[in-house]
């Protein structure tokens, strides 16, 4: 059993992180917030040529030929960087919708009564007739409401969990950075146990979710995927909330990025059906093991 990242997996994660830092850093994030609803097509094609969408497509079909663990690592980085766009939908469309694998096409999909990025999409999977725009809480995710919910692909659940894990990791890092630097009462606020314990709990939730998400990527087992989803949602939403709290007044500003993480984690919790369904699945699994 080697339940740790391999050299290649670490290199892939670092490569994606480096690409996103270069192409979607702080300035680009600001610019995206200031131009809501518009997707950077050049970046989308660059992601395509880097293999982000074709990652799991067999080499014979022009893909990278890697598996779910690698996809999870790439999506974790996307979540961490707050990369906008229908990433999961386009990734799942690779090999099925022309242009999706290369990043030539932006593919949206009908989810749990919502469609992300409908107006920017070249192709929409699922029934988006009678879609009505809503004023999205997340400035980086335009949303339409649809009367009919689409089906849920377990891989979409897992990749969304991976994005949540990325946000949870980033929220913890930001909180710790701030707690080390910000001084009040003559010492860094991170020296106060009340702040320290918030940060420690963020790490505990993140690392437990990490084990669950990575394990689900290895097994692709439905119960493991439901587990990953519940743990990652919790780590991401509560992580962003606690990160905001650690930042005090600054955390409540539009300027500081933590609200973007929090809002995106909310969007992701609704993308693939209600959490209660995952809880029900895992409850039923307890009885299934019994018989």
């Amino acid at each position: 059993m080697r339940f740790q990242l391999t050299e290649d997996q670490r290199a892939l994660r670092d490569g994606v992180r480096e690409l996103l830092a270069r192409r979607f850093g702080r300035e680009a994030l600001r610019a995206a917030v200031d131009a809501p609803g518009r997707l950077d097509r050049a970046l989308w094609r660059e992601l395509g040529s880097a293999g982000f969408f074709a990652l799991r497509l067999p080499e014979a079909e022009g893909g990278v030929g890697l598996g779910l663990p690698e996809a999870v690592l790439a999506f974790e980085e996307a979540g961490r960087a707050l990369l906008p766009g229908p990433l999961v939908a386009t990734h799942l469309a690779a090999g099925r919708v022309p242009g999706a694998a290369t990043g030539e096409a932006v593919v949206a999909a009908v989810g749990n009564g919502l469609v992300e990025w409908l107006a920017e999409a070249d192709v929409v999977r699922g029934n988006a007739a009678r879609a009505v725009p809503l004023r999205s809480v997340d400035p980086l995710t335009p949303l339409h409401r649809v009367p009919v919910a689409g089906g849920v692909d377990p891989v979409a659940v897992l990749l969304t969990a991976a994005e949540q894990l990325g946000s949870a990791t980033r929220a913890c890092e930001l909180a710790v950075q701030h707690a080390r630097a910000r001084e009040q009462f003559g010492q860094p606020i991170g020296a106060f146990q009340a702040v320290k314990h918030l940060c420690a709990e963020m790490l505990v939730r993140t690392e437990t979710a990490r084990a669950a998400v990575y394990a689900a990527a290895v097994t692709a087992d439905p119960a493991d995927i439901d587990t990953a989803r519940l743990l990652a949602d919790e780590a991401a939403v509560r992580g962003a909330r606690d990160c905001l709290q650690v930042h005090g007044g600054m955390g409540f500003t539009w300027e500081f990025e933590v609200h973007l993480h929090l809002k995106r984690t909310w969007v992701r919790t609704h993308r693939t059906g209600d959490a209660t369904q995952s809880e029900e699945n895992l409850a039923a699994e307890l009885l299934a093991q019994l018989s």
Partner: protein
Amino acid sequence: MDLAYTPEEEEFRARLREWLGRVLPTLGPKPSPDDWPGRRAYDLRWQRMLYDAGYADVHWGGTPSVRLIFLEETEKAGAPYVGAGFVGLLHAGPTIAAEGTAEQRARWLPPILRGEEVWCQGFSEPDAGSDLAALRTRAWRDGDDYVVSGSKIWTSHAEVADWCELLVRTDPEAPKHRGISWLAMPMDAPGITVRPLRTLAGSAEFAEVFLDEVRVPAANRVGDENDGWRVTMVTLSFERGTAFVGEVVACRRVLRELAAEAHRNGRWDDPVLRRRLGRLNAEFRALWRLTQWNVSEAELTGGVPGVGSSVFKLRFSHARQELYDAGADVLGPEALDLDRPWVLDRLSSLSYTIAAGTSQIQRNIVAERILGLPKGR
């Protein structure tokens, strides 16, 4: 990333499973919790069986993966855990193995592995709990002996132990971490008084140990004089390593039993309770994965568990309490009946966020040693 075991590890698992199936029926009934001599005999008999079959040193000798498989399979088979062997196998033994002289290892390790001697732990004191280094039990050098006076608390198995791994203050002038020594104290030495300590669960799982000018040979000191704190840290990192593997497996079994009971008594129809059990399923599945993650990490770094086990301990101890609180809601008013299953476990689960470092201390460790936050003034 890989969750598959090697062919050798799978073979180890298969042989162990076959052996457990064969020998467990011969072990006899478990003694009652109050029967200390019976518990000692039972736990030592089990350790002897492990020794004869070649499994005795799996806690020290095996790779972390093999240890994980051993703990998983023995728990699944319903075999006893270390019981009275806890301190010898998981604290004192590994410490002596790592820090003892050849002579000390030859004297103390074989009887632990063969199931002949029981150890207890004399670390905590009434005024030294979370702040363990504040301990005040004094040891003076007198010829070839130390003379020890003071008192220890939360000592498991003290009534039936042959040896006590004892932390004493040998230099009261030095900074508190630098004046401590580690001694192996024979429990039959004159001057030792053991008083059982009744816990909120009603049983005497622990004892207080009073020491009145107890003579301990200086040759029983492991490590240098005043270096006992460092020696002890080796022990504590073992405690926070794979120590909870069997318990995670056990919690997953209890959770399935709770679901079956809820299904039987009709409370399964309550969606709030049902989903809570579903969420607990996620919780313990994730904790199992975190265990596998930590074990794989330990294998790469050479076996000594790192501070990452504090993350596990924090999450697991709270999850275990939530499990038994959910269990109480499955039982309804029956949860007030001490004769019902899980009710005593619910009470004992209350110690999990306190023992071996309170959750508050664990959060300080996580924040300072992993996240690098500054110590407060």
